[in-house]
């Protein structure tokens, strides 16, 4: 009886740790989404697809160029950064001052385009990265943690905090925030809003891309994950507060935790239902989330 309880609590601790580690990655890509919302009052419905593309970018780099996790992580980040800037220049800046239909449909259509192109190219099968230097499992006092999950989670936390520091403590960050606060005033100060917004899109997509590469090291995926991650990003940003990167950090960890516990107690099928249900509850009771402006 005592042994059974110890084992069960070990499993539970494992569930919690696993949830937090995954939640850290949620925090990372969600901080990209919240950055755009805070800056431009714009929601990117294709953000989940950016994460998904990051995962495939990592796969392609590993398959064709070989390379360490750092290499394919950087590759995914750069590729998605470029994609983010390109999308801003070609599409977003033209619709952002237009009717709501344009704004919503622009990234919604983009999501479909990216998702189904990925289905077409990669098929709907789940894939995972071949063996990397992060394979294997650690045994930390009875808890079994895949190395990849641990490294991915910790890296995600570090990167999210780095993004927060970038925004709040550097010159470029204060320029980004200035444009978010007051576009006209920023222009008077010699800051070019268009450039800053393009940069923000690059950072947002880049964050999603790295998050994708990190996820790829530890979890299998298919093109369908974009839709799920996109919704998780919405919930995380809503919980953390639109515009707050730190808020996304806390919220991401919480969402990861809630998801893991729901899967453990209710069954894997229910983990997403609980998270989406939480979203609806947030809209009803606390739309400004933990730390942001509504």
């Amino acid at each position, binding site marked *: 009886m005592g042994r059974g309880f110890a084992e069960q609590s070990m499993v539970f601790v494992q569930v919690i740790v696993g949830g937090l580690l995954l939640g850290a990655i949620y925090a990372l890509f969600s901080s990209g989404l919240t950055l755009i919302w805070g800056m431009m*009052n*714009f*929601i990117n*419905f294709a953000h989940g697809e950016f994460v998904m593309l990051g995962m495939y970018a990592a796969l392609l780099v590993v398959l064709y160029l070989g390379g360490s996790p750092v290499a394919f992580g950087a590759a995914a980040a750069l590729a998605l950064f470029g994609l983010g800037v390109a999308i801003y220049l070609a*599409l977003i800046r*033209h*619709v952002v001052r*237009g*009717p*709501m*239909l*344009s*704004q*919503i*449909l*622009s990234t*919604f*259509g*983009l*999501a*479909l*385009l*990216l*998702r*189904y*192109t990925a*289905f*077409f190219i990669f098929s709907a099968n789940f894939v995972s990265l071949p063996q990397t230097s992060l394979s294997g499992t650690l045994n930390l006092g009875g808890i079994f943690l895949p190395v990849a999950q641990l490294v991915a989670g910790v890296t995600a936390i570090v990167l999210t905090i780095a993004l927060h520091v970038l925004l709040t403590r550097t010159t470029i960050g204060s320029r980004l925030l200035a444009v978010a606060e007051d576009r006209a005033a920023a222009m008077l100060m010699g800051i070019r809003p268009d450039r800053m917004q393009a940069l923000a899109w690059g950072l947002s997509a880049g964050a999603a891309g790295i998050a994708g590469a990190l996820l790829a090291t530890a979890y299998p995926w298919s093109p369908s994950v974009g*839709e799920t991650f996109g*919704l998780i990003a*919405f*919930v995380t940003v*809503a919980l953390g507060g639109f515009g707050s990167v730190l808020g996304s950090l806390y919220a991401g960890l919480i969402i990861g935790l809630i998801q893991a516990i729901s899967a453990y107690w209710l069954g894997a*099928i*229910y983990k*997403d*239902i609980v998270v*989406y*249900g939480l*979203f*609806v509850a947030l*809209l*009803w009771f606390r*739309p400004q989330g933990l730390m942001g402006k*509504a």
Partner: protein
Amino acid sequence: MKQPISPRAGVCLLAAVLLLFPLVFTEAFYRDIGVAFLLAAISASAWNIVGGYAGQVSVGHSMFFGLGAYAPLLCYTLWGWPLVAGIPVGIALSVGLALIIGLPTFRLSGHYFSMATIAVAELIRIFFGTWALVGGAIGLQGPAVARGWWDLTFRGDLPYYYIFLAVLGLLLFVTFEVGRRRFGFYLRAIKASERAARSLGVPVRLTKLKALALSATFTSAAGSLYAVKTGFIDPDSGFGILVSVQMVIVAALGGAGTLFGPLVGALILIPLQTAANTWFGGSGSGLTFILYGGIIVLIARFEPGGLHELWRRLAPIVWRRAHAA
């Protein structure tokens, strides 16, 4: 600009064409397309009320379609009800859901509403896939043989065609009437500028809720019609994102916020979809959605008013050239 035919004559002509179509083209293939066209037109026109006229962009409208589709089949499976009786049940559920979503989100900016629609549609889809009562992942079926007219289970497409046509006619009539009255003006004002509308005394939140409820009602009806015709429903065909996407693209392509935009969109996209499925087989649907995604982005980027707006801008130029020649 002088028009070749008056609007009233144009509508009569359209009605005549639609009424006579299945009598002239009697093969099953044509009637199939006709029914698919009508269903797409109904769904898109229903979406159009809240997404086109009021400017509140729902990308999860399948939630109402799905509820409308499940209700008759569920009432039949559980209690043996006639399928017709399940249709009002679906509508009631959809209106209730509309309030659950609209009440909190309509006091926030438009993006919240859009996000909520996609999240709730997914939530319901996954949930229904796990719920044994509604058939789980397998779904529900209708009666194999009609027990009476009230099961709306006919052999052949002709009765369905005319029922769907009647519903479409009713929906377009309601949309037209609503558009002419105060409610319609308020919807368009909200779409153009909520802040200005508010300052003129427009009850913005209440008006949006009414629009959503009206839209949900007809979307639910469309779902019910789909279910009684196919005799089958499952979470994906009811609540899937592709159901939502089709409503949006059909309306937006033709012209969101116009009365006949959804019909034009359906007229173009349904034959296109059918052709793609025939040519490409299974992979056709994958390509179709790449195309849909691309079309939606192009509409958003270049012509949010759809083909209607494009026509409005180009027609005077075409006219002038034709007259000058």
